C-alpha cells in the first residue's frame, strides 16, 4: 500500500516525526524558562544546568529503584529544589538588576556544570525504559515505525502544556502570576508575598526543566554539553515564540524542532543556519516574538 509513496515520502515522514519529538522536548525545556522570564524578567542562564541535573538524578534513581516514573518525579523535584535555592539564595537579592542576575546565573551554571562533571563524569547516560514504553509502533496510515517513548514524549508535552495553561489561566496562583507579569509593584503593594511567589515560580520552572531532563535522557541521551544544547534551544524558542507566553513557547519549539531536523536531513552541514535564519527573520519582522507582547 505504501510502495507508491517511495523513499522520499517515507524519509520526509520520519524526519517530520523526529522534528515533532524534538519540538516536544524543546517545549518542555523552554516553558519553564519562559515562565520564569515572563514573571520576573530574569534570564535564567542556569536553566540548562537545572535540566541536566534533573536528567542525572533521574538516571541515578531509575538505576537504583528501577522505577521510571519515580525517576521522572525525583529528577523534577531535584531541579525544582535547586531552582528554589538559586532564586532564594542568589538571584532574589538582585531583583530588578537584570544584567547582574544574568551574570550571576551564568556563574551558577558554570559551577553546577563542573560539579556535575565531577560527580557523574563525562559519560553519556541513557535512562532504561519501562516495559510499556520500550519497543515501537508501526504507525497506521503513515506506515513508518516509531519508538513508543517518542510518542509518549509528545503526549507528555501536550499534557504539560495544557496543565500549564490551566494553572496560569484558571487558578488563583495563575491569576497572581499574571498580575505579577502586568504590574509587579501593585501586586507587592496589595500585600502579596511576592518574594515567596518568585521562589515558587522558580521551583516550578526547575520542575519542568528537571522532568524534561529525565525524559531527554530516556528518549535520547544526556552528557556534559546537553545543558548548553537545551539552554540555546530554550533561548531561540522564546526569542522566536515570544517571551513569557506558553503558546509562544509551543509555536517556537515546533518551528525550531522541525527546522533542525529538516536541516539535519536535507542540508547536513548547514543545519545550524536554519535555526539561526528563523530567529533573524522573526527578529526583523516581529522583534517581540511571534506571540509575544511588545515591551512597554
Amino acid at each position, binding site marked *: 500500500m505504501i510502495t507508491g509513496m517511495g523513499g522520499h515520502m517515507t524519509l520526509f515522514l520520519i524526519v517530520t516525526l523526529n522534528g515533532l519529538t524534538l519540538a516536544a522536548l524543546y517545549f518542555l525545556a523552554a516553558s519553564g524558562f519562559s515562565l520564569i522570564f515572563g514573571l520576573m524578567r530574569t*534570564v535564567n542562564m542556569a536553566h540548562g544546568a537545572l535540566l541536566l541535573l534533573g536528567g542525572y538524578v533521574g538516571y541515578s534513581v531509575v538505576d537504583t529503584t528501577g522505577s521510571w516514573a519515580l525517576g521522572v518525579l525525583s529528577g523534577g523535584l531535584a531541579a525544582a529544589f535547586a531552582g528554589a535555592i538559586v532564586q532564594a539564595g542568589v538571584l532574589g537579592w538582585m531583583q530588578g538588576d537584570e544584567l547582574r542576575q544574568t*551574570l550571576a546565573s551564568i556563574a551558577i551554571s558554570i559551577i553546577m556544570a563542573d560539579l556535575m562533571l565531577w560527580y557523574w563524569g563525562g559519560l553519556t547516560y541513557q535512562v532504561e525504559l519501562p516495559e510499556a514504553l520500550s519497543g515501537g509502533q508501526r504507525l497506521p496510515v503513515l506506515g513508518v515505525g516509531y519508538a513508543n517513548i517518542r510518542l509518549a514524549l509528545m503526549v507528555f508535552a501536550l499534557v504539560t502544556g495544557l496543565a500549564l495553561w490551566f494553572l496560569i489561566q484558571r487558578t488563583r496562583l495563575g491569576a497572581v502570576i499574571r498580575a505579577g507579569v502586568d504590574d509587579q509593584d501593585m501586586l507587592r503593594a496589595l500585600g502579596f508575598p511576592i518574594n515567596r511567589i518568585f521562589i515558587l515560580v522558580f521551583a516550578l520552572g526547575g520542575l519542568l526543566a528537571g522532568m524534561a531532563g529525565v525524559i531527554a535522557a530516556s528518549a535520547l541521551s544526556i552528557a556534559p554539553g546537553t545543558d548548553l544544547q537545551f539552554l540555546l534551544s530554550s533561548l531561540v524558542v*522564546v526569542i522566536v515564540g515570544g517571551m513569557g507566553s506558553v503558546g509562544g513557547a509551543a509555536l517556537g519549539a515546533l518551528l525550531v524542532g522541525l527546522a533542525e531536523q529538516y536541516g539535519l536531513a536535507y542540508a547536513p552541514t548547514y543545519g545550524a543556519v536554519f535555526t539561526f535564519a528563523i530567529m533573524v527573520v522573526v527578529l526583523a519582522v516581529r522583534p517581540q516574538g511571534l506571540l509575544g507582547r511588545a515591551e512597554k
Partner: protein
Amino acid sequence: MRPAGYLLFLALLPLVLNDFWLTLVATRALILGIIALSLTFLATYLGVVSFAQATLAGVAGYTIAYFGPNTVGVGFELPFLVSIPLALILSTITGGAIGLIARQSRGIYAIMITLAIGVAFFYFTRQNYALFNGWTGFSGIRAPEIAGVSLRDPAALYLLSLGTAALAMVLVAGFVRSPMGLSVQAVRDAPGRLLALGIPVTTPIVTAFAFSGFLAGSGGILNIWYQERISSFSVGLGPIIDILIVSVIGGLRHPSGAFVGAVVFVLLDTFAVDLIDRERFNTLIGAVLLLIVIVAPNGLQQLAKDGFGRLRQSNSNATE
C-alpha cells in the same frame, strides 16, 4: 605623560621576564584583554553586553587560517598583506551585521540574541567542513616572518600584542570623542530623545558593533598566531564565557577594565593548579565570577579606583 611611562615600562619587560612569564602570562593576558576590550567598549559606551565577541575574533582567526599556511589542506594561501586586512574587514562586517540583527534589542534581549548567534556559529563551524574544517578545525598555522624573525617569537609576539593593545585603547578613546562616538553614547543614554530629534539610532548601533568587530578581529588574529590552531572550540561557549568573565572581573565601566580582568584571569588560570585540582578550575572561576557579581558588580577596576579614592580622601582629611 603617565600612559607613555607605563608603555615604556611594559615594552622593557622582555628584558627581565623569562619565556614562561612573557608568553604564557603577559602575551596571553594582552591578547585576551584586546578581545575583552571589544566587549567592554560595547558595554561601556553602547550599554549592550554582547556574547558574540568570540565569534568576531573567530571570524578573523578562521580567515587567517583559511588563507594562510596550515597543515590540514583546506583553503588556499594568500600573502599576509592581503589576508590580514581581509580578516579585519570580515570581522568588522560581521560585527556590523550582528549589530543590525540586534539593533532593536537592549539589555537582556541583546544578551540572548548575541548568545544565540555565538552558539549558532559554534555549531556551524562544527558541522561545516568546506570552510571551517568541522570539528578538527585548522592546525599548523604559522605567523608571518619579518626579516627572518617569526612574529611567534616570544618577544616579537609580546611587543606586537602590546602595540596592538595600546593602539586599540587609543582608537577607543578617539572613537568615543568623535561625533559618531557621541551618538553611540546618546543611544545608550536616551534612544527615545535621539529618535525625537530625527537622528536615526541604527547607524550608531551598527557602527559601534562594527568597531567592536574590528577590535575583536585584531585580537583574534594575534590569538591564532599565539595558539597556532583554531577549531570550533575556539568559538564555543568556553571562550564566550571566558571573555565575559574577563570583562566583568575587570569592570564594564571603563575600557582599561578589560586588561585588569585579563591579567587576573590569566594568573588564576595559570596558578590555580597550585591552589586546587586542575580539573576543578571551572568551579573556581565560576565562584570568582559569582563573588565579583555579588560583592563588586562594577568590577575590580572600579573597586581599585574607589579604594584609592577613599585612601586619598582619608589622607587629605588627616593632613587637614
